[in-house]
């Protein structure tokens, strides 16, 4: 099967030109963020914005870190970690029920979840705000975690269910024959086998929660509960003309996701394209 030799070997010049132009469009703003974050504030107004800074410095990063950035960073880490862990656990349990049960209930749980993918956060935000206020959770990290979990569940459940359906029936049967309880099967069999699917959807959901903006904007208020995307926005208001500091905060905000991309590129890419057929 020499399939690979049949790939188009002719150079696609038009496509290549387009792709390189798009690369420039992608890279230019990213390059700009980086060089500006290294520029001394005084030089921002005099130097060419796209030039390499003559007096490159990390001062802007120091200014950002002195303004509680680590607190916001830590808040984001807690919210993302808890939301992703709980939504994965809850979805895996539900996916197991959906796949294993032959009942009306099991099938319909899945259908409702599919519908959930279509609910935009914007449409639900006012009642979510109402519920959070009523629960006395307004301006706490829990106010961000709980709805983030809820909105992560539909897609997570969909992907995990599709994954579990592929597992051979005989595996479950043999464990059941040995008298294992459903919980034991879940922990000893389903959990280890689902690791690749969990990684894929987990990295994707982490990206969503980490970069989420609307929940923090509406459900929190004080600096002590601020998460990173919101902090960027408030830095923009607070630092105003100190553009290097604002962009240094942008660089710091994207570093964890960049690290995730470098480590788990395949998971992130397949997570992003997962829900949509194949």
């Amino acid at each position, binding site marked *: 099967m020499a*399939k690979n030799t*049949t*790939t*188009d070997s*002719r150079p696609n010049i038009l*496509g290549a030109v*387009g*792709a390189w132009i*798009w*690369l420039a469009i*992608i890279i230019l*703003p990213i390059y*700009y963020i980086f060089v*500006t974050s290294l520029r001394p504030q005084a030089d921002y107004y005099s130097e*060419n*914005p796209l030039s390499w800074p003559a007096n490159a410095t990390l001062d802007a990063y120091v200014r950002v870190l002195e303004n509680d950035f680590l607190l916001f960073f830590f808040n984001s880490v807690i919210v993302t970690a808890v939301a992703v862990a*709980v*939504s994965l656990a*809850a979805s895996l*349990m*539900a996916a197991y*029920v959906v796949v294993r049960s032959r009942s009306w209930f099991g099938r319909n*749980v899945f259908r*409702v979840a599919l519908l*959930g993918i*279509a*609910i*935009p956060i914007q*449409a*639900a*935000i*006012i*009642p*979510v*705000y*109402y*519920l959070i206020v009523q629960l006395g959770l307004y301006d706490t990290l829990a106010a961000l975690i709980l709805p983030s*979990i*809820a909105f992560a569940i*539909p897609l997570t459940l969909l992907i995990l269910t599709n994954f579990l359906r592929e597992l051979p029936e005989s595996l479950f049967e043999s464990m059941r024959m040995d008298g294992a309880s*459903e919980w034991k099967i879940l922990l000893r069999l389903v959990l280890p086998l689902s690791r690749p699917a969990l990684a894929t959807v987990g990295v994707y959901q982490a*990206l969503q929660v*980490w*970069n989420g*903006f609307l929940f923090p904007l509406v459900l929190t208020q004080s600096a002590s509960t601020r998460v990173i*995307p*919101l902090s*960027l926005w408030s830095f*923009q208001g607070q630092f105003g003309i100190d*553009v290097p500091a*604002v*962009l240094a905060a*942008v660089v710091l905000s*994207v570093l964890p996701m*960049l690290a995730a*991309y470098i480590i788990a590129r395949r998971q992130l*890419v397949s997570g*992003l*394209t997962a829900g949509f*057929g194949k």
Partner: protein
Amino acid sequence: MAAPALVLFGFFAIIPLFGVVALSFVDWDGLGPITWAGLDNWKAAASDPVSRNALWLTVKLTFLCVLFQAPVSLLLGVFLAGRQRYRALLATLFFLPLLFSSAAVAITFTALLDPNFGAGSALDAAWLSQNWLGDPELALYVVVFVIGWCFIPFHTLIYQAGTRQIPKELYEAARMDGAGPVAQFFRITLPMLKYTIVTSTTLMTVGSLTYFDLIFVLTGGGPGNATRVLPLDMYLTGFRSYDMGKASVLALVLVVVGLAVSLGLNRITGASRMDSRSEG
């Protein structure tokens, strides 16, 4: 075992969906007591020129976004589906915008498009030094471009995956029939990507309808109301003007338009799926 997922999802996603219907019939400022308002919010929203303009802007934004994103991501995706080494490298770099939060992207472009200290002054190009975000005529197009910057990478991924699934034999056969690259693109690639095109376009459309964070940080709806699209209008009405009832009406309009578009596009797919079957 399904209980935790059901409770969490039900409480924070399903109940709010019904809650937003209920809230559209009440007066509530977000803190005080809730009082029955009947159809007042609906009447107020329907007769408010700002909200009507927001709906129109949303339609316009959605149309422009699809017009910009669909062809670019289709062409890039098809190109990146090739197995050459440097194309893989390009694909890796094309992904980068997806790592940034909307807030980060909006802040970057605010600085980059600054008429005095932005890219215009760097490249010494007069046309680049326009007041991009301060000119009501231009701001919406800038928003379309920045949204494209964020989301074309995602749709490129979808098209890349779709193109790689087209059987190589089809191209081989076409080449034997003497079809050039352009003919191959139009007779094989494009028809074979039909479902990918519908999926991607649906996601683009629904995405553009609900686009909030980026526009909020980039323009805040301004200048004037030039970029005050429906989700933004909803937020500002609810959480800045403290009129939750009217904001709920706007939220419902969003849901209905979004669902209508998805169902409509799905119906087109359904129809074309039958077509392709009957064609054999």
